[in-house]
């Protein structure tokens, strides 16, 4: 593939002139240089020689640039791999990262947080404000993308925005079969985050994938009717405020010195309703991630959420 093809494909995709079949097998020919017909022969010849010289020069710089970048890559590789020599061995039990912090998290985490999954207990109890920051990063990114790309409702529709697979019987049948399974699996991972591997981020990503698959197969118009823009906004904002308030409460009451005790205990480890606030927080994070992924897809494909 030539270097210019990528930009040209992007251009055609952006302008909406590219159908799906063309996207699969697209090969743009180089545009021939146009000569002005009214110029005399010797001027044309001179221009052609000049262009050839310029082309050669450009090719030479391009080649030099490429060689230089490869040399740069090799040098950086060598320096970084040299530092690997000073690292502790892979899978070494005596490595400095395996210190008392890790022993405390794994050893005491079950009694203190009530979560069997140590990673969930760590990121949603000990370090819950970190995860709150992550959710806000996602929310801010959604807002920024929406601000940058949102279009007016009566803006002209491009070809790529209306392309769907809704006439394809195979894809529609497979999506009909597979989307409910994906969504149930995502919900299972969300609800079992404190008991098994998984949690808010992975479950939310799987849920979002299910919705994106539905929107891809049946078209964004149908998907926008099923999941409205208002619902996405309400779910995201409610989840974020719930996270904010509940975690502030548990941080305020978690301090043993001010005499206030949290009414939410860790519960029996291993039960479904255990782990204190971890289960509702997992749900909140999962909804935020799901809505973010889905709105990224909708805004990039369609220009708006509804």
């Amino acid at each position: 593939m030539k270097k210019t093809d990528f930009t040209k494909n992007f251009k055609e995709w952006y302008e909406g002139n590219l159908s799906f079949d063309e996207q699969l097998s697209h090969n743009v020919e180089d545009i021939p240089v146009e000569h002005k017909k009214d110029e005399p022969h010797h001027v044309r010849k001179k221009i052609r020689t000049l262009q050839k010289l310029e082309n050669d020069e450009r090719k030479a710089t391009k080649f030099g640039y490429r060689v230089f970048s490869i040399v740069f890559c090799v040098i950086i590789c060598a320096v970084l791999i040299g530092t690997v020599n000073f690292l502790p061995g892979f899978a070494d039990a005596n490595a400095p990262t395996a210190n008392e912090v890790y022993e405390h998290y794994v050893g005491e985490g079950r009694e203190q947080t009530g979560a069997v999954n140590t990673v969930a207990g760590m990121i949603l109890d000990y370090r819950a404000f970190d995860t709150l920051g992550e959710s806000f990063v996602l929310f801010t990114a959604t807002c920024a993308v929406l601000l940058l790309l949102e279009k007016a409702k009566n803006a002209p529709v491009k070809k790529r925005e209306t392309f769907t697979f809704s006439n394809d019987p195979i894809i529609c049948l497979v999506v009909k079969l597979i989307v409910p399974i994906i969504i149930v699996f995502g919900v299972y991972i969300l609800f079992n985050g404190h008991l098994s591997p998984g949690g808010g981020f992975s479950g939310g990503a799987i849920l979002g994938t299910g919705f994106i698959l539905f929107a891809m197969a049946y078209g964004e118009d149908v998907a926008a009717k099923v999941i409205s823009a208002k619902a996405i906004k309400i779910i995201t904002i409610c989840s974020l405020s719930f996270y904010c308030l509940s975690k502030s409460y548990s941080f305020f009451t978690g301090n043993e010195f001010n005499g206030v005790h949290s009414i939410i205990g860790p519960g029996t480890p291993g039960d479904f309703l255990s782990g204190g606030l971890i289960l509702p927080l997992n749900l909140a994070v999962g909804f935020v991630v799901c809505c973010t992924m889905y709105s990224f897809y909708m805004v990039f494909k369609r220009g708006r959420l509804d």
Partner: protein
Amino acid sequence: MNFLINYEEVTSMILFAIGFTMLVFSKNIMKKILGLNIMDTGVYLFLASMGYIEDKLTPIVPPTGEVNALDYINPIPAGLVLTGIVVSVSFSALMLALTVRLYKKYRTLNLDEIYEKCSKEDEEE
């Protein structure tokens, strides 16, 4: 010679170097974003491999009974990788949106041409 033992770290360093070179030397904005994502992947691999300890279990403890922390691998890098993935997803989405806006204005993805057109505009003002 630590390279043969630390093969995961070596792989992550190579990924990081390739991504960094792409980020710095590519003229196409889309390829710059791809390079940044490759760089992120190297960092995740590095963190995940630092948390692994040989012959130990995943950090899912049994609901009852004694917990010996030394039987489990280190869960902290897993949390750090989670943070990194979220930030990189948001960052890529924001950068791609900005690229679409830049393309809408200047009709090119080449950063040099965008600079040229930008400076021409400034001179006209």
